């Protein structure tokens, strides 16, 4: 059987998610036995090919050129995977209350305006690997399931689910503005486990209830940040579509 052809591409990003993939170390070598990597600028792989079985794309779309490139990748790929928060959500968890159109910028290279868009604003995305950065084991799981022809499904639960299993002390109880309750888990609650509040890098959990988090913040005397009110307007108590 012919090995599935894989391409790895970057839009605007810090390439930290690809570094996470490289951090799988020996496991990458094993993975490479099952697939044929035909395109990856970061690693210097550039073979000729027409069609891709799997395109892995990290980064946000920030220019017309990137938008064009993304559309081309989509056209020649059977499966397109958005890798990391920039590709999944345009890296929005960093911005939160920040409105793009109010930013004064001198844009070089003939750019007219600032944008940082998720891939699915322009093309159909088949699978999402969440996080900033992604978790290497998540990526590995996606890969295995694709090779076995199974449907990959990211963790549907929130960060608290894993935090509780680790017996961590709740940061909200200490008055720390942790976003764990509304944030998609699967990261092993890495930040709260190190005593850091969750900053929401995997986007909203499937049953995220922003109303309830605002209530928790208020009850515990934590100042409700501006972006939570903004988020409430968008999703209210229910999940985001």
């Amino acid at each position, binding site marked *: 059987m012919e090995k599935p052809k894989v391409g790895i591409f*970057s*839009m*605007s*990003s*810090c*390439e*930290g*998610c*690809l*570094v*996470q993939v*490289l*951090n799988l*170390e*020996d496991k*990458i*070598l094993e993975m*490479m036995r099952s697939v044929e*990597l035909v395109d*990856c*600028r*970061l*690693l*210097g*792989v*550039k073979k000729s090919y027409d069609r891709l079985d799997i395109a892995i794309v990290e980064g*946000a779309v*920030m*220019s017309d*050129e*990137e938008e064009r490139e993304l559309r081309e990748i989509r056209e020649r790929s059977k499966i397109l995977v958005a890798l990391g928060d920039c590709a999944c959500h345009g*890296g929005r968890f*960093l*911005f939160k209350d*920040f409105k793009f159109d109010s*930013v*004064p*910028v*001198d*844009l*070089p*290279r003939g750019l007219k305006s*600032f944008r*940082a868009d998720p891939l699915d604003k322009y093309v159909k995305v088949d699978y999402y690997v969440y996080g*900033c*950065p992604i978790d290497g084991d998540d990526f590995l799981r996606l890969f295995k399931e694709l090779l076995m022809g199974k449907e990959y499904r990211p963790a549907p639960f929130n960060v608290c689910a894993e935090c509780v299993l680790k017996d961590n002390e709740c940061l909200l109880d200490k008055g720390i503005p942790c976003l764990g309750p509304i944030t998609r888990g699967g990261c092993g609650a*890495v*930040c709260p*486990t*190190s*005593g*850091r509040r969750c*900053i929401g890098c995997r986007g909203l959990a499937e049953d995220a209830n922003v109303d309830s988090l605002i209530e928790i913040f208020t009850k515990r005397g934590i100042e409700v940040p501006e972006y939570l009110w903004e988020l409430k307007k968008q999703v209210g108590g229910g999940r985001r579509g």
Partner: protein
Amino acid sequence: MAKEVVLEKVARIEGLLNLAVVIREGRVAEARAEALEGTRLLERILLGRDYEEVPDLASRMCGVCQAIHRVTSVQALERALGVELPEQLELLRELVAIGGHLQSHILHLYFFVLPDFMGRSSVFELLPSHEPLIRRVLRLKRIANAITEIVGGRAVHPVTPVVGGFTSLPSRLKLERALALAKAFRDLVEEPVRLILSLEAPEFERRTAYVSLRGDGEIPLLKGPVAVSGRGEFQPHEYERHIRYVTESYSMARHYTLSDGSEYMVGALARLNNNYHNLSDGAREMAASFSVKFPSYSPFDNNRAQALELVHFAERAIEILDALLESPPGRARIGFEVHEGEGVAVTEAPRGLLIHHYRLDARGRVTLANIVTPTAQNYKNLEADAREFVTVLLKQGVEDLERKTEMLIRAYDPCVSCSARFFREH
């Protein structure tokens, strides 16, 4: 007639970069390092945010050298708030930085640089002939990440360093484990480093100003005055008087020069040119056995300098861990009061001098943020090197001009993502 050669989206570097070279009458008239990566407005995102959020956001500058971005932002905020750490916590911070340097240098030297010298285009093509070596460097990478993880909580975007210290400290058992890892790294790295030192780089020299932190008996990563070779030193908070940026319509990044408009180089070569006498014994012996000498004026020697740093910083990590096990840190985090203030931290990222500068209001909200990355500082020097190097290649009539020029770019270990920021404050 002028001819323009454009090396597009150069492979095996971090981020998207074109190098355009304009050739007129057999000479290079102009070279442009064009950063293509979308501008990320990180300084704008930081405005108005609470100082506690800054390290999480600032580490997102870069996926390769996020550890040092986090540590540098924390140090700049500590300057602003007048926080001074006990020595043991400073040592732990240095350890986080070292873990980042080791993994970054391994990635650059063996995944990005080595294939060029072996006539291959990627590390996978090296696999059939060099599998034991590749497995060894993957193991070294894993060890470097494990050291960062023990102290920083996570290998990519570490989470524990915060203003005033750390959110939590590694247990004695974990420090012992880190020591064993550092020793294993030191042993395993010997052979791969010898390989890099033995490679024959293209012959090319061009003297420039080398800018790095300078140390007394050490190669400092997190403190010290900034040395400008041949011109003296300045203190971190004075940086704006000594370097300045220019905006180029072709690049998403700011390009930096010294205050007189001349280009300069930062990175491992600059560090060793300014601190060669402080190399650890093991690293110095290896340099001697391959007749590698500093100061060196060949940008290609940045690779050799990184290789020697792998040995040096592994030995430094062992020293730090011995000291920490002998006298462990007491508290994870010291107390401080939030007040108005301004602070600058200058550190050494794997790719060179890194500056974070913040101003806070009375509630600890950011009112000014400025970040100067190593690659942004190197662009003008890369352009100057490319002009001269390509002119030499044209004179020699070499056939693989593009490949050799790419090797020059790669020697700088550019990190385009870090550098691509374009934010006007008014």
